[in-house]
């Protein structure tokens, strides 16, 4: 049995320790925000936050995550009450197909929580590991910039 803390809720799971976190999120916990892209930590679609840092959930075994705080895009807000990062992405209409967006949001969220005043150069650098095949990079950058302002104005 492995116990995982996801978005503040504890889950006891009967899964092998080398199972990637992504599979557990999607298959066992029905948290389908994080996506399977490459399965090799090369594309960023599976990005979630662990203890405040963005990680690739597809290459992180659950055995490494006991006692640690996992956050997924579902933890940023709801459809009724989207969080500032989610609002910013909607307001900038930053999604084309949308597959990369949860990963983008989680990596951006981790950045803005540790560096609230991040400028565009820092945002670009932080988002480098996350790929978008539709080419909505400019909108994504604008959305993260907007999120920085929204998060800042909330204090």
């Amino acid at each position, binding site marked *: 049995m492995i116990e995982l803390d996801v978005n503040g809720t504890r889950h006891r799971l009967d899964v092998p*320790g080398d199972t*990637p976190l992504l599979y557990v999120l999607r298959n066992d916990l029905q948290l389908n925000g994080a996506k399977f892209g490459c399965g*090799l*930590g090369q594309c960023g679609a599976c990005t979630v936050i*662990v203890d405040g*840092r963005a990680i*690739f959930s597809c*290459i992180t*075994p659950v055995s*490494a995550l006991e006692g640690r705080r996992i956050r997924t895009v579902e933890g940023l807000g709801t459809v009724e009450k989207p969080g500032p990062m989610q609002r910013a992405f909607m307001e900038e209409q930053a999604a084309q197909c949308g597959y990369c967006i949860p990963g983008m949001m989680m990596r951006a969220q981790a950045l803005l929580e540790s560096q609230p005043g991040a400028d565009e150069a820092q945002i670009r650098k932080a988002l480098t590991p996350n790929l978008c095949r539709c080419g909505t990079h400019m909108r994504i950058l604008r959305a993260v910039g907007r999120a920085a302002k929204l998060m800042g104005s909330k204090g």
Partner: protein
Amino acid sequence: MTSRLAAALGAFAILSCTAPPPAPSGPMAPARFDAATVAKGARLAAMGNCVSCHTAQGGKPFAGGYALKTQFGTVHGTNITPDPETGIGGWTLENFTRALREGLSPEGHHYYPAFPYDYFTRLSDEDVAALYAFVMTREPVHAETPANHMLVPRVAVGIWNSKYFEPGRFRPDSSHDARWNRGAYLAQSLAHCSACHTPRTALGGEKRDRYMAGGEADGWHAPALNRETPSPRAWNERSLTLYLSTGLTDGHAITAGPMAGVVHNLAYASHDDVGALAYYVVSLMQGATGSAASSIANAAKEHPRGAAIYAGACADCHDRGRAAEGGALELQDAIALSLPTPANLIHIVRDGIIPREHDAQPWMPAFSGALTDGQTTDLVQYLRSMSGRPPWPDVAAEVRRIEGDSR
């Protein structure tokens, strides 16, 4: 990004504080250099990795400002563009030659030996002139070099020089062929390989009786390039040439850390010269004892926690037996597992292997957020065990040190 001489005694001086005195001949105007000489100088400068220390992060090439942290303080690579006020625009060929071969500024003060004049002293007149033609035809950039913060005064360099600095040109070894001598010349002068690949004394001088026996650069281990090479697979001229010019030898090695910057530059060096360098270095490795017998089954038994992390985090890429394209090294062949210290392996696990912008190379993700220090330690101990070599003494402390340095 890279520093050649983190363990050495400081770096290049600030040249910009005082204007150079008028020299009898005067610097040459760019138009007076012929294109072939400039092109040759460009290839040589790539061999010398000059741009790495003489360019700030995000700065203009050769305009200085790169901060080199050493155990003796922080020094900055200087502006070597031909800007008359902040660069070397006022330098004559004689000024330039003296700087390279004697480590002295036009005003006669010492440069800190992180500027590798103790290697460049062996350069031929012809190559010094080509390098001069190259730097003097760069775009002049007005950029003051930031102040150094050195614990050792510049005058102390004179004492260091009397102990460690042997001025003089390269002397060919007639018992070897011309290609070997070309490689030896480059390795011992411009390429300054042994600056990182030879261990140093507490005062930052090379241990001469341990030439190329492995040293340190920027917190990374620079592996031995002599018969003490820990490489699990023997290098040959072809594999080393490929590695030096592309950063990648299929199934054998991928460049990372400070060497990645060196390799990036070597792509622009003369291919014949890179081949000669490989030919020479491989000759130094002759008689290497080879690797230990690895046993993955034993490793898993001894380090079950590390083995579990490996299975979930690493095996998908490293255990698939795929062709090199898109696949990853089989780790029992990876040199990082066989080195005397775990530093390189910890750096790679934490920070991944991220190619420079626009370089097309395999990309290994960073695991610094995914794994705790304790988990990184478990994994590194397991991987070491996989190599069949004795355990590293204190992996946990090294993980903490590298984690601390990166903050």
